[in-house]
């Protein structure tokens, strides 16, 4: 079967979205199902068929998504209704839309990769407000409880309570940890 000439191919647009919180393992297939479910429940099968959402790649904490040209608005609105992927709570923050994947990859390079922690404290790299990696202590106290820092970027600090009972993240700032 011969491929279609470029003029007959359907035009596509690519969306760059940041996956929050940092370090949550997100599989492309799971993300596709989450997007598809969100879009179908919001717009219905007909619009989703016209939208043709797809996940191209997930790299450095960013997702590159695809949709048909002219449906970016619908796609963006449906992305804003995503609250989870499999068992993880996530949010997708749309950063840019483009006609090529390359330009979005350039954008990722400009933004800098997300610091991933892989679940291990020792592998958690933290960055101070100037953007350079810092080596602050791994444990902290907030609200009289002991927490483990799992991610830190600028003023943002994500912590998880030490122990096996509570594994929910708290989203704090450096000022919160200094105060309490």
């Amino acid at each position, binding site marked *: 079967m011969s491929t279609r000439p470029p003029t007959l191919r359907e035009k596509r647009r690519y969306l760059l979205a940041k996956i929050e919180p940092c370090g949550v393992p997100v599989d492309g297939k799971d993300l596709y199902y989450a997007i598809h479910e969100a879009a179908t429940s919001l717009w219905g099968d007909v619009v989703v068929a016209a939208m043709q959402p797809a996940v191209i790649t997930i790299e450095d904490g960013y997702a590159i998504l695809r949709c048909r040209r002219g449906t970016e608005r619908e796609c*963006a609105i449906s992305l804003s*209704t995503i609250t989870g992927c499999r068992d993880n709570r996530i949010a997708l923050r749309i950063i840019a839309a483009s006609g090529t994947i390359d330009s979005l990859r350039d954008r990722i390079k400009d933004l800098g990769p997300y610091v991933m922690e892989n679940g291990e404290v020792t592998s958690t790299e933290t960055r101070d407000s100037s953007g350079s990696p810092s080596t602050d202590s791994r444990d902290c106290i907030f609200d009289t409880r002991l927490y483990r820092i799992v991610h830190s970027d600028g003023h943002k600090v994500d912590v998880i309570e030490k122990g096996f009972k509570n594994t929910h993240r708290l989203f704090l700032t450096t000022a*919160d940890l200094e105060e309490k």
Partner: protein
Amino acid sequence: MKITDACVYPYPHGNSSVRRLALEARLLGYDSIVAMDTPACETEGVTVLSGLIIAGMPVKDVTNQIKRGKGQGVVVSVQARDNGFNRAVCGSKGVHILRDVACADKYAFDHVAAKIAADNGTAVDLDLSPIISQRGHAREKVIHRYFDILVLHNRFEFPLTISSGARSVLDMRPVREVSGLCSLLGMDIPDAEDALAGVGKILAPKETAVKVLS
């Protein structure tokens, strides 16, 4: 015009500190947030307004509680209930926002309540969290109620506010996406911007009908 998220729940109600919510709000394009049960402050370049939600009380107790907290600069929101309650609350001085109208019964907010709200400058809140997190019939119901509120808003011009009801930074949405979600309700961008600036409008001192020039 201050772009405000009319309701967020910081720690301990949620999993994010008020500073983190303020930081996130700034990155998402907000100028201020109304944080429940939190003292007012200015942090991370965002104005944090203190909020109070009154729920599950008869009108008399609502009035008493408002009287006790009068003059403290708190944004008072009252959870909507039945029609009579909503009419009374919309007419009460000191109530800034009537919220959760979508959770109340179908005729809880009618044209009379809308007229009273418009006369008294009481805003009606559009909480986006059910639109974001719910699916199917539950979301349809909320959207239908919001359609109804917007019809009354266009007729009586009572103020609107928009809130994310965020208990986490992950629940907050950028201003642009909020406009997109509002477009589902038939609001265009200026309408959404007006609603986002609603808290600033209701807190601004009211202009008197007659001005004494000299």
